[in-house]
Every structure is written in C-alpha cells, then in structure tokens.
C-alpha cells in the first residue's frame, strides 16, 4: 500500500480502466496502420505493440494487488447511526441556543437603545 503513495483504491482502479481504454486505442491504431494503403510502418507498429504489452502487464499487476488487498465483506458490526442521531439532536440544540442568544442580544440592544 505504501508504494502506491497517496492514491486510494478507487483511484487505482480508475487508472486500470484508463489503461484498458488506452489498450483499445492502441489496437485500433495498429489496425489502422495495417490497413494503410502504402503499407504499414514497422516502427510504429512495434511501438504500439510494445506499449500494448506493457499496459496489459500493468493492468494485471494492479488488479492482482487490488484483489489481494480487498478486505472481507463483513456485515456492519459497528453501526454509528445512534451517535448520528445524538449528533443531530446536538445540532438542534445548538440552533435553539443560537436563536435564543440572538433574541437576548436583541433585548439587550433594545434596552440600551431605550436607555
């Protein structure tokens, strides 16, 4: 996990998908090159094929690591919904107190204004 730096698992899988797209593009490019009316250029095809193989290898490596690293799916043992409700109640308390403080301040201002 450390070798991947700060990328998340989601980002790594995103990269795998991008590589697959790139692989498809390379295949299309090779086909286009082969269908060239003046004959295919060897270097171009070589480069494409090399890149293709490299990408396939990268994809395999990444997927293998992700599969190894995926944790078992456990049903939710620790549910934080009750503390979430407690949090919501605290939010409501806060709003209530804020509104009352505002009213108090208004009262004070009126008092000072009257004086």
């Amino acid at each position, binding site marked *: 996990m450390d070798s991947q730096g700060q990328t998340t698992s989601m980002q790594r899988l995103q990269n795998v998908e991008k590589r*697959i797209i790139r692989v498809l593009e390379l295949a299309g490019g090779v086909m286009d090159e082969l269908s060239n*009316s003046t004959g295919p250029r060897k270097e171009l095809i070589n480069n494409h094929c090399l890149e293709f193989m490299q990408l396939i290898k990268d994809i395999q490596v990444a997927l293998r690591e992700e599969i190894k690293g995926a944790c078992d799916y456990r049903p939710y043992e620790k*549910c934080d919904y009750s503390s979430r409700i407690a949090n*919501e109640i605290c939010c409501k308390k806060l709003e209530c107190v804020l509104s*009352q403080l505002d009213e108090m301040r208004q*009262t004070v201002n009126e008092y000072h204004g009257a004086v």
Partner: protein
Amino acid sequence: MDENIEVSLDKLPIKRLEAIEENGAERFPPDVDYNEKRLSLIRKIDFAWAVEKDDEKKKQKKSSKESLTPLKWQTMVENLQLAHQELSVIIDLINTVEANDAVTVAGMTWPKPLPNEVLSDLAVSAATKLQCFRHLGKYFKQSAKALEQQVAREARFYGALIRLQQNWKVKRQRMAAASAPGNEGFTIDLFDNSLHDPAAIVRPSSLSTIRVDHDAAGMLAINLPSNLCHSLQFGFIGSQSGDDSRESSKKFYSSGEHHLRESEKESLSDEECVKKTHSLLREVHQAIFDEQVFDLVNREAFNTSLGFSVTGIRQNYLQLSLGQGTSVFLSLVSSGQDDQTVDGEGAQNVDDAILPLDSLDGVMLPDEKQDTLKKWGFPNHLSCEIYLQQIFHEHVLGRGNEKPISTGGRLSGHPVKDGSGLLEHFCMSLAHRIFSNKVLMVVENVVSKVPYLQLISHPTWHSRRSSWTLVVKVPQSILHARCESHISAIHNEKNSIKSHFRTKVVVNDDCINVEGEGVSNVIGLLKGKSEESHSMHSCNCDLADLSMIILQQVASQVIGWLFEEALMVGIKANRDFLRLSVELEQRETLSLVAHVDPEDSQGCISWWLVMEDSFAEERKLMDVTDAASDYRKFLGTFIFGCVVFNADGLGQLVRWRRPINVV
C-alpha cells in the same frame, strides 16, 4: 380514345393473284400487251380460239418458270436439308437422354484466365483484407471512446457512492435484468440494527431502505417523495408559541431546495450533488427516529397514567393534559406541509425565549412583561421537543453498544432506569418548568422592588430542580476599616463583617424551599434568644407565601447587620425580628422598624423610625398604621443612605441624614 376513328379504304387491286410461291412471293399475271389486250378482247368472241391461246400461254409460262426457279429452290432446299440433319441429331440425343438417365459430362473446359484477370483477383482480395482491417480499427477506436464515456459516468456514480458509504450503510442486490437498465441494485439501509432493545421498535419504517437510482446524466440520485418524511413537533396548547424558530429551520431546508431548483441540474457539481443526497438521507434518518419516538410516546401514554392524562388523539397527533390547565400536544408533521393550529406571528416574540438557566445578575426587567402570565408560564417549546428526543434517544433508542455517558451528571438523579417512565419524567419536568417560572416571577417581582436586593440564578443540571440566590448587599461598615487593624487574622473569621447576605430558594418539582443565612427564623427569635449570625435555616413554603417570607428574611438580615454594627461601635442595642432598638439617654428608645408588604408598589420594605419612651413599652411592634404620630418617622424604602452611626459616640448621638430618594 376520344378521337373519331377514321377508316380509310383502299381500292382492291383489280389484278388477281395467279400463284403464290413457297417463299412467299406473289405472282401476278404478267401485264398483257396493248396489242394482246386487243387481240384478247377480239378473240373473246371465239372461245375456242381463246382456250387454245390460254393453253399456249400456259405452256410458255411454265417453261419460263421452270427455267428461273430451280436456283432459288436449290439453296432453300439445301438449307432445309442441313437443318433437318441437325434437328435429327438433336432429336436422337434427346431420345438417348430420355432412354438413359445417367449422362456423364466428359469434361468441361474453363476458359483459361487471362493474366490481367489474375492480377485483378489478387488486388480485390488484398483490398478486401485492408477494408477489414480498417473496419476493425474503427471498431476498436469507437469501443475505446464508448468505454471512456462509460468509465467517466461510472466514476462519478461510484465516487459519489463511496463518499456516501463513509456515512451510511450501502447494500447491494444483484437484481435480475428485467429491472430498469443501468440499475446495479444498490440500496442504502437506514435501519439501526445495533440496538439491544428490540421491543422498543415494533415496526421498522418503510423509509428504512432507500433505493439508489441514476439520474439523467448517470449520476447518483435518490428519488423520494417529499411528504413521506415526518418530523416531530411539540407545542403548548393555547400559547402563542413562536413559530419563528421552526420556520427558520424549515427555511433552512426549503431555501436549500429552492436554490437547487433555480440552478440547472447539470450545473450541479458532483460535490453539491453528494451533499444534497447526504442532507436528504439525514432528513430521512431523522424522520425515522422521530417516528419511533412518537410511537414510544404513544405506547407509554396509554400504559402509565401518572402526572398526565391523554385528552386527544388523532392521526399522528397526541394531546396530553399536565394538570392545572396546561395542555400539550405532540404530532408528526409532514415536512412538506405545516400542521399548525396556532396563528403564526410575524414579528419575533421575545417573550417566549425564557430560560431560567443563565445568570441574570442584576438585570431588571421592564414592567410591561409582568402582566401576562401565559407568555411567561410556558417554556420554549423547541427546547422541550429537543429534550423529549434526547431522553428517548439516550435511554431507549440509542443505547447501542455503550451506556450513555453522563457528562456533568446531567442524567444523574433521574428516576428512570429502563426507559419505562420517560414520558412521566418528561411531563413532570414540564410541570416543574412552568411552576418554577411562576416562582421566578414572584421572586423577580420582589427583587425589582427592593433596591439593594439582587437575584442570581443557578443552573442545576437537573430538569426538575431550579435554584436562585437572593443577595443583600450591605455597604461596608465605616468602622470596619478601623477595626480591621486591631483584629488579627485568626479572629478574622469570627469577627468578619459580611458584605452580603444570601437567601437561597430551591424548587424541587413543585416544592419550594427557602434557606437563609445569618438569620434566625421566626420561631427562634420569638423565644428571645439571639442566634449566631452564620447559621442557616430553611423552611418550605407555598407560592403564595413566598414573597412574604423572602421579604421578611431580607428585612431581618438588614436588621441583623445593623445590630452587628451597633454592637461593633458599642451601642447598646436590642434586636427583635424586624426591629432594632437603640437605647438613648433618658430611657428613651429609638427603634428602627421594617415594614414588609409584597403588594406595595413603591417598595416592599419600608422603614420607620419610632421614638418610644419608657412608658410605651407595651405598644405593639407591628402597629404602624398610624402614620401621623409624632413618634414615628417614615424613612422610605432605601435604608442604607440614611442611618449612619457616629464614630465617636457610644450611643450618645444618633445622626441621620435626609434619605436620598424619599418616596
């Protein structure tokens, strides 16, 4: 065919055909010479002659014919013969075929390909292969583009889903393909399965499982009808409960909705989309909790009947009576509409925001707020609602894995152990609040009338207990500074003159307890003994007697202090409950008498100076109705500015100044 048909007739030729040959040539009789015509005409008369002539003619013609036609006939006959031969061959062949079924082809010779044909075949096959490659290449590129778009769409969806998964439980069901295309079967589960008390929850709400959909752009979306969510609402019946706070909180949600409706959906960034979904899930989660609370309240309301009674019930509405004419209601309000029976007020009502928790040190209330008991009597309905939710959450619904943490002993002292008496506790808390508001009103009334009295509120962190302290601030004694130098530190505590006296008022449920310091109670003083100044005495009283008792305490505290001062300067003084007597020469007694009247609008404690001679000892202490007597002098309500003891004199001279504020 509208035209008229025209028929043209040709005259038939007079000449008649003589013969028609096999090849179709028509032979007309040769033209007769003119001479022969004449001859023939002439000879017509002699028919025999004509007949002979005809025969001769015929013979001549036949001979001429026979000399011309053999050539034409010959070629024709030869052609016919050849054709006949070929036809006979073919007929033989057909007969043979009919006779024998099997006929083998001996061989067929393909026409030999020409060299340009070979090359063109090669070129065509090569071109076809290249075309295939091109198709393939195009197909790959198109697939790559389509995959890119789909990956982008799914990245948005799954990115949002992962962010939601940090806070909510996301579950997946592999649904059959018959469902809506593109639906991967994700649901968000809002049901809390970690509660230890399954009896508390009878019916899991239908809102517990929320389906995750895609919107038009493929982004995560949740479709929920807005009036499915209910929120809890609590209120006092008959009070103008300010709906401003509720409206403001509702405005919070509705303004968010409004904002979203104004902007186009496509321009919503992913962030905003996730936030909107998250707040929607929060609403639903709270709605589920509110429904559970309402359910529990209903169950408890019909099980126990202490401290309250059910007076009304409708769908999603429960009305309780707390006694003494106070009625409250609890209802589930759909978030889309407002189920208020109270007229909403436009301006903010400051009177409703009353909390006896904070310190109100020295704040004098304007007089116009003391007339409406109703406005003062009811605590803030919003805070009651929150309190109800809190106690149910902590004791029943939110127990989960850990015990509720009682911070600051907030929950200590509750009689509730297993959540069965929660509603009862809540109703008793409400009753206490209302009662303590009344107590506070009485106390504040007293405090506002007496200028040297101050009120301090104390938070008790208990919902059924309130406490206040009344402080009498006495000015520092003049002699105190002088005497201080003579008093050592060890005797400081014993001889220290207090600068203020306290009276504590504690309300427990609906029981008032008054505790005063430095004051002897009525019974002790009437016995004639002088008590110590630092003792504390307490008594219970009713609301009606509270102001009287407080005023008496305060007055006696002042008298007590004056007594101490008098003793300090060495004046011979006596002290009764509300009266301080100083002996002058000639056996005269000067008395300072306090008169206590809670309903006095000028001031509750008024002071009188009474001169008595030794002959009038029998006069009653409380006989203050005769204001016109020479022996009495009304000093007003403010005492500390007008009595000053002479520093030198040991009771010889009593000097007083005019009171500053004479009523």
